């Protein structure tokens, strides 16, 4: 057996820089509103993301009402339907998932887990949130503009995104959407640079890269990827804005719209798709890698066992991150690009399955011979593995170029990406909130409400998206306001659609219970204490809970071991915190 606890017994390096003084707030405004404290910024990011996410949830209800009971709700006409799916998709992918994982969990956990007092650029960090909020407001405002929000689909493919056959194409909708994305990317860049530099430069003494918790590895790698991928979306948005407002033709070839020749020519719609997916595929992993990291820590902590194959897990994260930049065109197998690209992109795409599968093996092997506490975070982690494996395996259908041909643009794709980058990461978000809520607030979330929330969310979401694959296999296309009569499907799919819709309403309702629990437990939750899960990582070793400004009191923590010393033979407890020098002494004893 190999010892992965690198550096044990080595002398600690001396501190490279003196502990620097933080910015200290002087008023209520600078403490709680224009705060430079990453923990406050994290909560601001989190609440904003969840708030706009609730809009996306309501939109998903409307979408499912239309699909399950077509023609029943006159409110949901074709134009509105396309606006709903577009806004639902964009909000969920960018403004909820990306913002919550990186802006929310990243801000809260990175400084605490690496043993820093705060992010290295607190002022830029504060700006990052306010610019993100502006992006959200611009996006939300598009609901109230003439013509309403854009209905171009979340992929915003030109030329239709900027033409009159699409809602918002010739009105304000697409302009607001592109502007909001541009603002979001500007804000994200400020935050993202912070996360990367803090991980590289702000770690406590003894916290080597190979001692970082996998949560930090996931968020760190995802942030590096986002910094490289978002610029492609940025330029695509700017170019499309020029096409729409200034009459340029980056993405616009000669077009006859409804019998009228447009004054465009020479542009390439496929160029946009390349730019979009050069961002869009890494984006999948920008959401997935933080989830991978967090779930590793949840499983390890609640199974009381070290994560299996830590080094392999780190390398898998890094390799997946790298490979994800050379697979983007698997979203474009039937886009009309040169078909010979298919050989290359199918191969790279299926290669990515290997490191991903290794991660899955290591999660379940961590459970094996563990001491599994079926706490809420553990339940959500198990749900993540089930839904992620399911969604990942259907990715092998869509990534394998020729299999993608019949399935592309059908409900199979919708089911696949919801399972793998919707349900699975959101299971991790829930698990993570149940796990870290005690640290953030000092109180536990209510267990009974949590159990109801878990079972409805997990079984309901699986019942929504598993059967949906078969609709796609039959050939039901996605983005159809109403399929109507179709010779190739039996009428029984209407019943399946109605079932899926009922499930979707139910799962949505369970989220309201979850929000209620978040608020209710603030006041009525059980007192948590500093380390209720008996976890090893640094955030649980803070002198105060919730951690005070500056996190660590007078002395910065010193790290002596990796993050996974659970159930070490011979140790008095079944966990040894990272800042504890010898197995026998607990850290608070050492400090006193």
């Amino acid at each position, binding site marked *: 057996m190999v010892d992965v606890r690198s550096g044990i017994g080595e002398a600690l390096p001396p501190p490279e820089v003196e502990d620097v003084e933080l910015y200290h707030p002087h008023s209520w405004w600078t403490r709680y509103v224009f705060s430079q404290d990453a923990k406050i910024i994290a909560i601001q990011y989190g609440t904003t993301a969840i708030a706009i996410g609730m809009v996306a949830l309501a939109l998903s209800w409307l979408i499912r009402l239309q699909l399950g009971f077509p023609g029943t709700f006159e409110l949901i006409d074709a134009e509105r339907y396309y606006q709903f799916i577009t806004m639902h998709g964009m909000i969920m992918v960018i403004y909820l998932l990306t913002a919550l994982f990186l802006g929310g969990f990243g801000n809260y956990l990175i400084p605490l887990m690496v043993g820093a007092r705060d992010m290295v650029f607190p002022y830029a960090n504060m700006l990052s949130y306010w610019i993100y909020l502006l992006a959200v407001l611009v996006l939300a405002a598009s609901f109230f503009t003439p013509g309403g929000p854009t209905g171009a689909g979340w992929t915003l493919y030109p030329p239709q995104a900027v033409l009159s056959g699409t809602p918002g194409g010739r009105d304000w909708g697409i302009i607001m959407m592109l502007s909001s994305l541009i603002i979001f990317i500007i804000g994200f860049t400020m935050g993202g640079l912070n996360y990367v530099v803090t991980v590289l430069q702000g770690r406590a003494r003894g916290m080597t890269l190979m001692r970082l918790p996998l949560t930090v590895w996931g968020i760190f790698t995802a942030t590096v990827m986002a910094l490289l991928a978002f610029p492609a979306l940025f330029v695509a948005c700017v170019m499309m804005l020029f096409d729409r407002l200034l009459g340029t033709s980056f993405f616009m070839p000669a077009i*006859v719209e409804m019998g009228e020749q447009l004054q465009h020519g020479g542009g390439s719609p496929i160029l946009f798709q390349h730019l979009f997916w050069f961002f869009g595929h890494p984006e999948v992993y920008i959401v997935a890698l933080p989830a991978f990291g967090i779930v590793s820590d949840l499983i390890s902590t609640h199974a009381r066992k070290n994560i299996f194959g830590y080094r392999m897990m780190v390398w898998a994260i890094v390799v997946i991150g790298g490979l994800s930049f050379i697979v983007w065109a698997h979203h474009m197998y*039937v886009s009309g690009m040169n078909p010979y690209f298919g050989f290359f992109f199918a191969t790279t795409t299926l290669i990515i399955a290997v490191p991903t599968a290794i991660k899955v093996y290591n999660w379940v092997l961590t459970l094996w011979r563990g001491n599994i506490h079926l706490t809420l975070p553990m339940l959500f982690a198990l749900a993540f593995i089930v839904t992620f494996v399911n969604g990942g*395996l259907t990715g092998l259908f869509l990534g394998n170029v020729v*299999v993608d041909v019949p399935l592309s643009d059908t409900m199979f794709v919708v089911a696949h990406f919801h399972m793998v980058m919707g349900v699975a990461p959101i299971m991790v978000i829930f698990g993570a909130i149940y796990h870290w809520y005690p640290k953030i607030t000092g109180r536990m979330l209510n267990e009974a409400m949590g159990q109801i929330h878990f079972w409805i969310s997990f079984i309901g979401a699986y019942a929504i998206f598993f059967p949906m694959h078969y609709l796609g296999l039959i050939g039901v296309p996605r983005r159809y306001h109403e399929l109507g009569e179709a010779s190739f499907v039996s009428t029984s799919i209407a019943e399946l659609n109605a079932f899926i819709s009922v499930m979707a309403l139910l799962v949505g309702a369970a989220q309201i219970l979850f929000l209620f629990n978040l608020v209710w437990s603030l006041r009525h939750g059980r007192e948590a204490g500093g380390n209720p899960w008996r976890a090893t990582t640094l955030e649980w070793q803070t002198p105060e809970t919730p951690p005070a400004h500056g996190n660590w009191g007078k002395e910065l923590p010193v790290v002596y071991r990796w993050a996974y010393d659970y159930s070490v033979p011979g140790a008095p407890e079944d966990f040894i915190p990272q800042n504890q020098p010898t197995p026998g002494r607990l850290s608070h004893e050492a400090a006193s």
Partner: protein
Amino acid sequence: MAVVVILVLLAVGSVLFHLLSPWWWTPIASNWIYIDNTITITFWITGIAFTAVVLFMAYCVLRFRHRPGNIAAYEPENRRLEGWLATGTTFGVAAMLAPGLFVWNQFVTVPQDASEVEVIGQQWLWSFRLPGADGKLGTTETRNIVPENSLGLNTNDAAGQDDLIIEGGELHLPVGKPVKMLLRSVDVLHDFYVPEFRAKMDMVPGMITYFWFTPTRTGTFEILCAELCGVGHPQMRGTVVVDTEEDYQVWLAEQQSFSQLSASTETRAIPGKVCSGVPSGVATEQGTGAFTLFEEERECSSPTATAVAASAAQ
């Protein structure tokens, strides 16, 4: 314990749903049975992997759940086990990729004897063009599109004069003959998709895309648009009829060529049906005020549109 039961039920239920539910692909009508076979292989491999992982998790929860006195093992790494798992996965992935790439090679290699058919997409209508007696399709240009030449053929290209034009009607194809579908769009992205043929491909304005297939049984099939093309997307349907050779020849003889159509439109101009002449750029760019979906007769220079254009220009 509930967790164990639910995990087992979920794995078993998924397999049973797959095997027993009535929802399965529609019977194939083209040569791409290879695609169906590759999907079947993929279902087997992924199905086994999924069931194995979920059942193993259920076993772990059952066997290693927390009970008093239970202590987790301490085993940071196991190189040998990790190596075996990585190798096994690599073989599984290769078993799916190899047939996939093999069939893809067939998919992108158009047979020499394939006849050509052009499909033209526009919001929200399918049109078709078949080569005439010369066996060649004439060249086209989106800029050429005017009401009397709605598919934009180059009028000075002799090869195009005898091309058969089918606007908004049914496409017929002979059974058993490979056909190369040349795909073109005049406005936005569309996608020519017939579920029974399994194949599909986007249609992109400004370029010509293609795919090929051989219809293997006669019948009438529905054409769907599979790439979001605006609010009329779900209504963009068409019909393709696969005929026996004799029926196909009968149908073919009924179709009108480009030169015949041009001659007839010259004699009977239809005022008001479509906008006459190409309007000026500004009006086109901004003139969307009076647009209604599926409006039979569309006004190009309505007062509203002109007003919008004028205000935008200021």
